[in-house]
């Protein structure tokens, strides 16, 4: 997986709450059997919104509101965001499965307090070329005016992202434990293995 450390990127706003994964990548694009190529269809029906405007071309940070990524578990949503060029999503809150899926694809979802998000939307609107610095090792988002906003992240996820570690490889280091667990289960609840 591609590591994520520090990102200094252009910010594109998507000023809506409850953006669902059907809106991020509609189902007619789910028929592919590949992981790539979804970028051109990101927000398919919504390109008329800010996010599709020329001033935000090349944006790597998406700014949004609460419950981003709700709905379907489709990983096509983070694939499409990634393929389009986004590396981080800054919002008030995220839906659970989407949040998880981001980490598997080197995308960083950053949860900030509502007041900070409000301020960021206001700044993006009035500041052409507004950029943010997302510093994962120090767990901070830094505005161009020097204002620093701290964010939380699980230690394990942070470690995996910074080093671009592959989950499967990491988990398989515990193969012996998994096998032992499985054997015990097989003895105690044999019907699960029939």
């Amino acid at each position: 997986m591609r590591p994520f450390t520090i990102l200094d990127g252009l910010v594109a706003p998507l000023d809506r709450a409850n953006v669902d994964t059907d809106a991020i990548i509609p189902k007619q694009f789910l028929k592919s059997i590949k992981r790539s190529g979804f970028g051109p269809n990101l927000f398919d029906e919504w390109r008329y919104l800010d996010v599709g405007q020329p001033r935000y071309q090349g944006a790597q940070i998406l700014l949004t509101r609460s419950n981003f990524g709700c709905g379907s578990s489709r990983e096509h949503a983070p694939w499409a965001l990634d393929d389009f060029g986004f590396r981080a999503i800054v919002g008030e809150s995220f839906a659970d499965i989407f949040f998880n899926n981001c980490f598997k694809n080197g995308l960083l979802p950053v949860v900030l307090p509502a007041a900070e998000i409000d301020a960021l939307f206001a700044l993006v609107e009035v500041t052409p070329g507004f950029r943010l610095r997302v510093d994962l090792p120090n767990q901070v988002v830094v505005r161009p005016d020097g204002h620093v906003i701290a964010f939380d992240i699980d230690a394990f996820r942070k470690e995996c992202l910074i080093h671009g570690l592959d989950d499967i490889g990491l988990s398989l280091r515990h193969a012996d434990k998994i096998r032992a667990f499985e054997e015990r289960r097989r003895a105690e609840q044999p019907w699960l293995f029939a």
Partner: protein
Amino acid sequence: MPHTLYDKLWASHVVHEEPDGTALVYIDRHLVHEVTSPQAFEGLRMAARRPWRERSIVATADHNTPTTHWDRGIEDPISRQQVETLDANIREFGALAYFPFRDGRQGIVHVIGPEQGATLPGMTVVCGDSHTSTHGAFACLAQGIGTSEVEHVLATQCLLQKKSRNMLVEVAGALQEGVSAKDIALAVIGRIGTAGGTGYAIEYGGEAIRALSMEGRMTLCNMAIEAGARCGLVGADEVTVDYVRGRPFAPRGEMWEQAVSYWKTLNSDEGAAFDQVVRLDACAIEPQVTWGTSPEMVTSIGGVVPDPAREPDPVRREGMARALRYMGLAPGTPMCEIPIDKVFIGSCTNSRIEDLRAAAMVVEGRRVADNVRQALVVPGSGLVKRQAEEEGLDQVFRAAGFEWREPGCSMCLAMNADRLEPGERCASTSNRNFEGRQGAGGRTHLVSPQMAAAAAIVGRFADVRALL
């Protein structure tokens, strides 16, 4: 110390825990469908890995399959490729069971898992599909996962995750006649919102839940994800055990006895602590209808379309106004005055035999209203379809002017040919009313099967209680 059901299920599946609480959780059952699995199998192949335990896998093709003319196969070439890719992947990697397109037992993955006894109490169940929460009705820890996680489970038989918090939704008393599990599900979401359950495992309890059949409990847990919770749960009881008994993959003989005595422990202990408790009164729940583009935008059939101008929060206000523009609705319109164009009875929320019976009871001896262009019944599985036909339900629907289809996801997400046209309004028993979900520009109103049947007959949303 007393434990919640979720605590028990979690504790009995943790293989390893990192210092920050991230755990490797063992997975007993892995359900697989064609849309979210191809990239996972491809990843496995590229890394030269094999499934850790292929006999944990139960697979089917459901999202892309047509619901008419099965003799012609799948006409859309891209859908066909996805389904054929699943065929090939199962051939290459193996599975405990595969119900391919046109198999008599094929159907929506969340219908066939329980139906086959492949979902058993106490299991951890995953599927690359958010509505995996359905299986929590069996006191299972059942969760939707992304495709990378599908690959992770294939390769390691484990899921990496942190424990959620506990929420109890307690529904006291008894439901009124004509009010169903779907109405409870929508009423709960109306109360706590679509993000209300984020970070929680929701356990449903109380008399009204105990009184539900397994079908009803599945409907309820199915929509836990619409409340933001990755999993919904109902404790195991006689209803659970009776449903599982005799199913193809259920244990038999001595093992059955052994299993049942374990399953009886799958309830929250008396006095177990929940991080949050939500209480509802069953008898106060009216038949529900959504008016907007999120399941939380819901009211009862006696209600009206709300006025965004009255919403103090600006982001919410704008969201409501946008939803009403999309839905083509004016504030203050009584729900029962909204005419519909189509009716869809189906999806993993409401396509089981009990759902079809409830809808048929309303439809029997009546006709679909003239303004309704299409009324579809799509059974959840081949076995549900067969049983309904044995009971003559197909005849009841057909006689009323409904189309009786082959099983699959169908118009729930419109990946096959069944869809809404722009501007069309649908009474749907599915679970998501997002913009474009049932077809670009389509307008979805979520209701119970009884309410969908009533809408079909009256031609607009109607209180089913007046038709019983």
